[in-house]
């Protein structure tokens, strides 16, 4: 059942994206409420990253709308983007900038005032114990450390909605736990999050609802108990449910 307008932080309204002859995302509709973490899973090429890029404004939908807090992304991109935090699947940053400079730049882009910015950066660096490398050029960072800086950058301006593409790839186990706690705490404060991932154990731990994409279409959606009930497998893990629904296809 659709959420009421005031209850919706993110609404994708019949979103489609076509690249030439190929339909990457087809008629996708979903909603995320404040305080909710939504996991979008699916095989490679199912349209997860394309969906994320449409929500963040990197792609323009062929048809359909992206509404954030009731505002249309196409009509009000600047206001919508202020509410978003984005963690990309490949955390490319500027090689010749330090992590601290990168965070300063991102904070400035989102209009965080200098004293607040400095305070937030120190707080965030402590979360992943990055203070020791924050003044080194990003070219020296491992993939995991780049990912951590991308995660911190997405949180710097206190967004209302996090869009996360593969949050924990390359992270060490301790950082995965930190990230999980961060996301749960973020939702606890009323924020919403859309997470695309292949790490199903992580999705199982943090997501309130799961959507399964296949060939650009949302073939299943619901909380873990609901999905188990549909599959008639009360003890199934998300991994087992993923394999099951991927095989059986849409209802």
């Amino acid at each position, binding site marked *: 059942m659709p959420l009421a307008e005031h209850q919706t932080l993110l609404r994708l309204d019949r979103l489609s994206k076509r690249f030439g002859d190929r339909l990457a995302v087809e008629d996708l509709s979903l909603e995320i409420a404040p305080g909710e973490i939504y996991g979008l899973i699916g095989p490679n090429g199912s349209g997860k990253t394309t969906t994320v890029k449409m929500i*963040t404004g*990197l792609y*323009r939908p062929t048809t359909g709308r992206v509404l954030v807090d009731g505002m249309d992304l196409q009509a009000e991109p600047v206001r919508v*983007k202020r509410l978003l935090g984005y963690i990309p699947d490949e955390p490319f940053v500027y090689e*010749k900038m*330090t992590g601290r*400079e990168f965070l300063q730049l*991102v904070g400035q*882009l989102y209009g965080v005032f200098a004293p607040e910015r400095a305070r937030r950066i120190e707080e965030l660096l402590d979360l992943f114990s990055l203070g020791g490398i924050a003044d080194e*050029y990003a070219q020296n960072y491992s993939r995991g450390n780049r990912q951590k800086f991308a995660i911190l950058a997405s949180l710097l301006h206190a967004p209302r909605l996090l869009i996360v593409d593969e949050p924990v790839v390359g992270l060490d186990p301790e950082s995965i736990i930190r990230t999980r706690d961060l996301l749960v705490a973020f939702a606890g404060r009323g924020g919403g999050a859309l997470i695309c991932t292949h790490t199903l154990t992580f999705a199982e731990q943090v997501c309130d609802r799961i959507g399964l994409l296949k060939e650009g279409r949302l073939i299943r959606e619901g909380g873990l108990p609901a999905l188990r009930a549909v599959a008639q497998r009360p003890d199934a893990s998300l991994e087992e449910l993923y394999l099951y629904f991927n095989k059986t296809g849409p209802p």
Partner: protein
Amino acid sequence: MTIVLALLLRRVRALARIFRDREGTKVAVIGLFALLFVLVMAGEYLMVRQGLAEVRAFGGASAALTLYILEGFLILVLVVSLLSFVGNGLWTFFRAADTAFLLATPLPLGHLFWLRAAETFFLSSWAFVILGVPAFMALGAAYGQGAVFHLRALVVLILFMALAGGMGAVLSMVAGAALRRYRAGIGMVLATVTLAGTFAFLVGLQIVPSAADFYVIFEPAILNGKPASLKFVESRFELWPTHPLAVLLYRGVSAATMGSPALAGAAWFLPLLALLAAGVLGRALFTATLPIIAEGAGASMRARTRTAGGRPAFPRLLPGPIGALVERDLTLLARSPEELGRAAFVTFLLILYTAVLFLAPLRQALEKPEVAARLFFLDLLALGYFLTAFGIRFVFPSLSLEGRAAWIVLTSPVPVARLLLAKVLASSALLLLVVGPIAGAGVTRFVSQPALLGLFALLLALMTVTTTSVALAFGVLWPNFKEPNADRLATNAGGLGTILLCLAYVAGVAWLGRGAVLAFAQGESLAAYAASALTLSAPIIAGVTVAAHRRINRLEIL
């Protein structure tokens, strides 16, 4: 060495694949660039041939003048190619993207040296092709020479390339070894500035002729009807390694007996010596230096990100989100040795050009308004060319170079159209700051009246803003976020369009400048010329800005 040849062949095959697979756009762009180069070479050929034919008509002074021009020309090409070699070499030999990969393969370091030498030579040999070939052909044509001369010229060109290649490799290795402990950016800037300064000093001291030199060349013919002595020219250039080659070439067009057998031998010996020095000294320095630099590249590089007062050191200069992005561009440029090296090279050429203006004896020629107008035209044309060169290399790729980090800006709440406007303003301001003083100093050689200087400042400012706007807009219209190399980015259809539009526009402005100088000499007002320049520039700026604005709002990072 088989592996080295195989790697070189792979690079050639990558180019051949474009034609084999009939990649229409790329083939068209390569074809148009080739056509542009051919046109430049043809223009140079015609100008040099005409110039040398006129020099021939000077009678007694013509032999000495021709030799002087040849000597000076070869030195100029040598200087340009050495600077280009060292600028490219410090990067290609020690910091190319595939260095780590190749170091991990069983390829011996000595073989890697030859691979890098070949790659760098290929990147730096443009001066021989674009400057050398047309000039040599023009020399033969001006003196009515046939196939034998052209064969001789070809041999001289090959010897010259060997000489410059060997010297360039040794210089690059000496610079690399001497600066191995420095950060890449500092090392590259130090090497380029030191070399450019040394060359500029030597060229200014020895090559650019003074009024006294002209007296030595012209007086014997005027006073006694005798030809000027070639000894004077020979002694002036005898210490330059290009001197034996200049003499060898000159003997192909002149019946004059000059140069000893030892000098003729030196024309062959010096290039061989340069190659030998590259193979022994250069290779030894390379094998000793590369592991140190490669290891250093993996070490931590830190920046001062806090001021003494504890305040963040970035962003510090410019306010607001747009200011932060402009400051980011400046910071990344300042930290990129490759980009700085390129900027320093183009700036050096501009300084060299201005130095020639200062040292050339122009005073008497300027008594005629037509000559002053022609020089004003050529000066604006040259400055427009430099602005286009800066634009195509540094402004055109600026959006594409956001690359895979483009998500940072494009997902932020910063209006990208405002960012583009800021980039135009910042790039124009920076260019005016660099080019303005140098160009302003140079133009005082042909005009001194405040009104004409004011018009020159206006034309220069208009050319800067227009070429920058065109370069940025075409970069937006033809983006490529997957290509991290600015040189390659500049060779797509957009780059070619930028060059053609900018050069056509610059020619228009320069022609207006010429007309203004002539009108001023007749006591007419310059207002109409200033208005015409504004009328020419405004639609171009507006047109490309609107096109870029429309495109940026539909841009997708694929």
